[in-house]
């Protein structure tokens, strides 16, 4: 199993080098092609531009034929071979057009010797040299386009220091097994996913989640592989290795997304698949027609070659995937994982953004929000409450214990949990009762004096706990599921952009309304059972397309039902299967970024498709009508695919937040 994991990682690395090898090989071809093509150009132009005849025509043709041979058949060999194979297998590609164009042009050189036709052999060499140059520039630009994704692949640690038999040993990453204790020194990379076993430190997780603030790690906290330990030594117990790690999942997501299609590209894809055969037929027709009307073999051949080399299926075929690649790379860098290309297109139509409340708008974990102490110090109140609540596992209790953060707890006797009402116990000789109004009433403790404060907290959606000591109230502690820091900002940004914002929750009306008021959301749908969320989304869809944002674990049906499902991940619990877009960090501003990124990427795709279509629609008729010299035609073709890739790379300059 482990061996296979290793293989998987290795594959990805090898693929990287394939890309670099390709750039290198184009570069080598480019240098050699021009070493021969420059003298050819000089010979061709010296005659035409300056009417300097260095040699007689026969010698000149012979020299060009000799010089052109290595350009076409050595540096251009892979293109020629691939192209000719198309004529045997009937799977025609771009290469078939270039191969046919250059070979026909080259042959004219020999025919010139018998005075049959004008010499295009120099042109053939120029076409090949320009084609190779174009491919080189394109491969470089494509390398830039995949920069972010490649960085992701290189993110993983190669080595790990593990503790075995009380000894620190350095091992290859693939040898780390679940359960191993890994030592991560300050500045070191945490090699795999795990939980902190010993030590504390802050960890920079920006490379994986896009979250720029370092995250504090203590015992039992989860850590993510490939993140950087900053200041303390961490002992991490490995929980996930190889293909199971968070990083491996992200890489898989991003890779798979590259294979998905954006609906708008369908037409372009259809055209690409029949493009080359159509151009071949067109070329033959053009040649026959030109020859029939002009009786000029040289001119007819020139026009035919122009048509062959100007047609560019590449720009059409690259337009969408290259923009998707740049877009998803930028996303991955910011913790936004686009799983399906389709989501990018659908996003543009979305009118309503629906949020789940718990864990999406709020942190999903109750926290103490207010402490109101009466005639005692706040620290004393927390000490008493914390000591008692420590003995309970209730989420509200845990919130108070976390807030009190006591080093030493008071010893409690006669402790009792009063289900649904609160707790009681004795600290020293003092009787402590903590709980809600009902509990106080049962014990005949008068709360009327503080009724106003309590009601006020409740109207804010908070749960209050009244703390009494010897039947006297010493304080009120309010607990609520706190908002995430950027929820308000994110929702107001969405509203500014014209989206209708909706919150769905299982909470009661009061709590829901209180939260809604704080984040200024447009519409609240409360008291919704988890299984009914999808139905509510369906109802909203009657008004317009809906994007649903939820945690991906409980909200899977609603994510599926919506037009664009955005799943929120936190830490290592990433819901891979749910959602068209997955957010690696838990913050809501990621939703705004995801929407902006989708829109911008889609706009790039549209621009690219427009240029690619427009190029072919304009250029092919120009070539057919004989207005373009074959060399100009080839330059135009090379530029068209470079333009598409460069334009996609420009996406990197736009802001998404």
């Amino acid at each position, binding site marked *: 199993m482990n061996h296979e994991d290793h293989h998987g990682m290795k*594959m990805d690395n090898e*693929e990287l080098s394939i890309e670099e090898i390709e750039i290198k090989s184009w570069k080598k071809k480019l240098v050699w092609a021009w070493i021969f093509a420059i003298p050819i150009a000089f010979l061709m132009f010296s005659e035409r531009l300056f009417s300097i005849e260095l040699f007689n025509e026969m010698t000149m043709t012979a020299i060009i034929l000799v010089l052109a041979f290595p350009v076409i058949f050595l540096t251009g060999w892979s293109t020629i071979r*691939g192209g000719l194979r198309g004529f045997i*297998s009937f799977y025609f590609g*771009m290469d078939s057009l270039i191969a046919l164009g250059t070979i026909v042009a080259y042959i004219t050189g020999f025919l010139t010797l018998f005075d049959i036709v004008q010499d295009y052999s120099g042109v053939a060499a120029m076409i090949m040299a320009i084609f190779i140059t174009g491919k080189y520039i394109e491969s470089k630009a494509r390398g830039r386009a995949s920069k972010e994704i490649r960085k992701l692949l290189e993110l993983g640690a190669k080595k790990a220091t593990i503790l075995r038999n009380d000894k620190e040993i350095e091992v290859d990453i693939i040898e780390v097994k679940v359960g191993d204790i890994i030592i991560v020194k300050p500045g070191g990379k945490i090699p795999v996913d795990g939980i902190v076993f010993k030590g504390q430190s802050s960890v920079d997780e920006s490379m994986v989640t896009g979250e720029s603030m370092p995250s504090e790690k203590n015992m039992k906290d989860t850590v993510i592989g490939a993140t950087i330990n900053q200041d303390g030594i961490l002992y991490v117990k490995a929980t996930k290795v190889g293909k199971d790690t968070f990083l491996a999942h992200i890489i898989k997501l991003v890779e798979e997304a590259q*294979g998905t*299609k954006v609906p708008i590209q369908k037409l372009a894809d259809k055209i*690409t698949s029949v493009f080359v055969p159509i151009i071949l037929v067109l070329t033959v027709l053009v040649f026959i027609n030109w020859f029939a009307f002009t009786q000029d073999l040289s001119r007819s051949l020139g026009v035919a070659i122009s048509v062959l080399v100007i047609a560019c*299926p590449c720009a059409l075929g690259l337009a969408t995937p290259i923009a998707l690649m740049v877009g998803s790379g930028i996303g991955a860098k910011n913790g936004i994982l686009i799983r399906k290309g389709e989501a990018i297109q659908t996003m543009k139509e979305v009118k309503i953004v629906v949020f789940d409340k718990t864990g999406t708008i709020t942190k999903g974990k109750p926290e103490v929000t207010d402490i109101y102490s009466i005639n005692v110090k706040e620290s004393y109140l927390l000490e008493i409450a914390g000591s008692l609540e420590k003995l309970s596992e209730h989420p509200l209790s845990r919130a108070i214990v976390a807030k009190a953060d006591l080093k030493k707890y008071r010893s409690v006797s006669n402790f009792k949990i009063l289900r649904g009402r609160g707790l009681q116990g004795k600290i020293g000789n003092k009787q402590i009762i903590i709980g809600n109004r009902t509990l106080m009433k049962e014990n005949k403790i008068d709360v009327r004096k503080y009724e106003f404060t309590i009601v006020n907290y409740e109207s804010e959606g908070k749960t209050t706990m009244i703390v009494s000591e010897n039947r006297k109230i010493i304080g009120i502690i309010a607990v609520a599921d706190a908002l995430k820091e950027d929820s308000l900002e994110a929702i107001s940004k969405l509203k500014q952009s014209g989206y209708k914002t909706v919150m769905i929750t299982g909470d009661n009306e009061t709590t829901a309304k209180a939260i809604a008021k704080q984040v200024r959301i447009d519409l609240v749908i409360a008291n919704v059972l988890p299984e009914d969320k999808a139905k509510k989304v369906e109802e909203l869809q009657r008004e317009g397309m809906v994007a649903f944002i939820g945690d991906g674990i409980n909200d899977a049906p609603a994510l599926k039902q919506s037009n664009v499902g955005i799943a929120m991940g936190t830490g290592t619990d990433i819901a891979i299967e749910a959602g068209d877009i997955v957010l690696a960090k838990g913050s809501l501003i990621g939703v705004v970024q995801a929407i902006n990124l989708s829109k911008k990427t889609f706009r790039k795709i549209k621009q690219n498709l427009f240029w690619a279509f427009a190029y072919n629609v304009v250029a092919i008729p120009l070539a057919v009508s004989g207005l373009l010299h074959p060399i100009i035609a080839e330059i135009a073709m090379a530029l068209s695919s470079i333009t598409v890739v460069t334009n996609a790379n420009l996406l990197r300059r736009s802001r998404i937040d």
Partner: protein
Amino acid sequence: MKKKILIEGMHCASCASNIERSLKKVPGIKDVSVSLLTRKAIVEAEDKVTDEDMKKAVSRTGYKAVSIEKD
């Protein structure tokens, strides 16, 4: 069954669509998506389709399947 084929030598959009067409012709292959940029074909096929079948379909178009991985 989902498989990932790494393909060598593919450098234009027509190539990708040729490979896609060729793979789709193999009986038992239900869905194919070839990505020019990742140089990978993701194939959804019945279990009866062998790696050999897929390799042949790729080489028929003039390219080489470097490796086939189960996804």
